């Protein structure tokens, strides 16, 4: 009796969030898919299609159906290759930097030293900084070639200051974004290091295991799983980096896929093209998501 009642209540309790998420997912996605097959420009929503493409079909709102032309246009746009390359470089570099330095920093924070709590919060802090703040602070106060801090350091060593954003825009964005995401990797790897069996640690110490082989044979295998989690979760967020590029004005040289979609849609008003780009981004993200979901699903069973 009670279980039957609880179960009905349970369904009632779950349904609002399911319905809302369902709408949040299905409505925009299906609209994006639909738009991606339209010749739809906000400035000129109902062009005379027959002039553009003889024999073109119209939808209910007199917008021209475009078939796959938005996709072929987006996929052959040189800007797409550039943006795709930038997306991949950004994700790849930031992942490499954050996993490598995250591991080292986590190992460091796992040692006993004075003021550990304070050092830990200092190392985590960048992750809590608003993306627009970190973008502007890095661009102006650190990387400015005339009066930025890095220029000051270079000059005091008698070196030529680097004009970061003019000559290395993508590298600048990568450094900035890595600074924000290294703490995330550190935090997760540290959490997992601290769950390493104390007895194992002591046993290794008693046996006089050299630190390097201790790391290689005991610590690293233990860290593989959290590392995978870091890689997958960071990938999802890094594929969507936007504010850093928007704010620093590096769209041309360092713009990634999300930014290109934004440019197509909200700047050039080409809804059809932007939607096709959006769908391509969704497909890419889904490939990553597939692996992440399997990881987390396994964890749910354990």
């Amino acid at each position, binding site marked *: 009796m009670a279980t039957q009642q609880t179960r009905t209540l349970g369904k009632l309790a779950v349904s609002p969030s399911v319905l809302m998420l369902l709408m949040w997912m299905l409505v925009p996605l299906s609209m994006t898919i639909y738009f991606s097959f339209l010749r739809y420009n906000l400035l000129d929503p109902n062009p005379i299609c027959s002039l553009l493409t003889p024999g073109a079909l119209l939808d209910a709102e007199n917008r021209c159906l475009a078939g796959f032309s938005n996709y072929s246009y987006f996929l052959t746009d040189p800007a797409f290759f550039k943006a795709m390359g930038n997306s991949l470089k950004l994700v790849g570099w930031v992942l490499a930097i954050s996993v490598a330095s995250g591991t080292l920093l986590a190992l460091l924070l796992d040692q006993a030293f004075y003021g550990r709590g304070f050092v830990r919060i200092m190392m985590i802090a960048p992750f809590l900084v608003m993306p627009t703040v970190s973008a502007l602070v890095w661009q102006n106060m650190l990387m400015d070639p005339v009066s930025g801090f890095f220029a000051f350091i270079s000059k005091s060593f008698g070196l030529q200051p680097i004009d970061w954003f003019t000559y290395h825009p993508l590298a600048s964005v990568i450094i900035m974004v890595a600074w924000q995401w290294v703490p995330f990797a550190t935090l997760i790897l540290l959490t997992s290091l601290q769950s390493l069996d104390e007895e194992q640690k002591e046993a290794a110490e008693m046996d006089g295991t050299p630190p390097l082989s201790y790391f290689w044979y005991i610590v690293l295998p233990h860290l593989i799983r959290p590392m995978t989690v870091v890689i997958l*979760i960071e990938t999802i967020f890094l594929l969507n980096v936007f504010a850093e590029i928007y704010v620093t004005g590096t769209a041309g040289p360092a713009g990634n896929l999300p930014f290109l979609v934004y440019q197509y849609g909200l700047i050039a008003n080409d809804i059809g093209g932007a939607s096709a780009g959006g769908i391509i981004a969704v497909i890419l993200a889904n490939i990553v998501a597939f692996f992440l979901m399997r990881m987390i699903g396994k964890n749910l069973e354990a």
Partner: protein
Amino acid sequence: MARNASIRRKLVVTAFAWTVGLVIFFPILWTVLTSFKTEGDAINIASFFSTGWTTEAYSVVQSRSNYVQFAMNSVILALGSTFFALVIAIPSAWAMAFAPGKRTKDLLMWMLSTKMMPPVGALIPIYLIFRDFGLLDTRGGIITVLMLLNLPIIIWMLYTYFKEIPGEILEASRMDGASLGKELLYVLTPMAIPGIASTLLLNIILAWNEAFWTLALTTKDAAPLTQFIASYSSPEGLFWAKLSAASTMAIAPILVLGWFAQKQLVRGLTFGAVK
């Protein structure tokens, strides 16, 4: 001897760790320091520590631009979206943790998968819907988006916390003849509060720093601090001290919350995969 060696080792590690920590923390520290300079002093690093300190930049930021309005928007958006998300998520997570059905696991995975969708996939329709319904640059519109955006994370996090509440306690209270309402109010709620508080904390941080939808969908009236800071990207004249003051005010509350929420960050952002 051995003891001395271990203390020496600890001192070396301390010096090294503090150095690394300060290097990583430096951009934030530098921002805070610069915010207490005049504009002229802010760009002269060579004489940075020999010139005076002032809170002038803060009052300029305050008086010239409508800082308070942006800050208010940030607070309203973060708290509002968190509040509504919790109202919807708590019953769901509750039901899935204590009355799981056959498909609960699939449902959880599906909820997680909505988080995987890149925002650009939804940007155009949401923008058009917002435009047509007059929701662009309104607090209500942004609160809805932020709420939906973080709902999966919130449900997951609450679920992992609720899962840790032992089911035997429920059975015991039922045996004692407690009604469902009493069971919820007196037995479960007190045990769930810490998990709910942690979730709340994490979500405020996420909503406060969200900078895709807030940049794309707001311009002025509902614009939070992300947008306010972004307006500094096309500056006129000297602006570092003002930028620093505005930035310091934008990140300080979250740094404080983050201090309390370190563990929750891990659990929430890994969907319970790392605890």
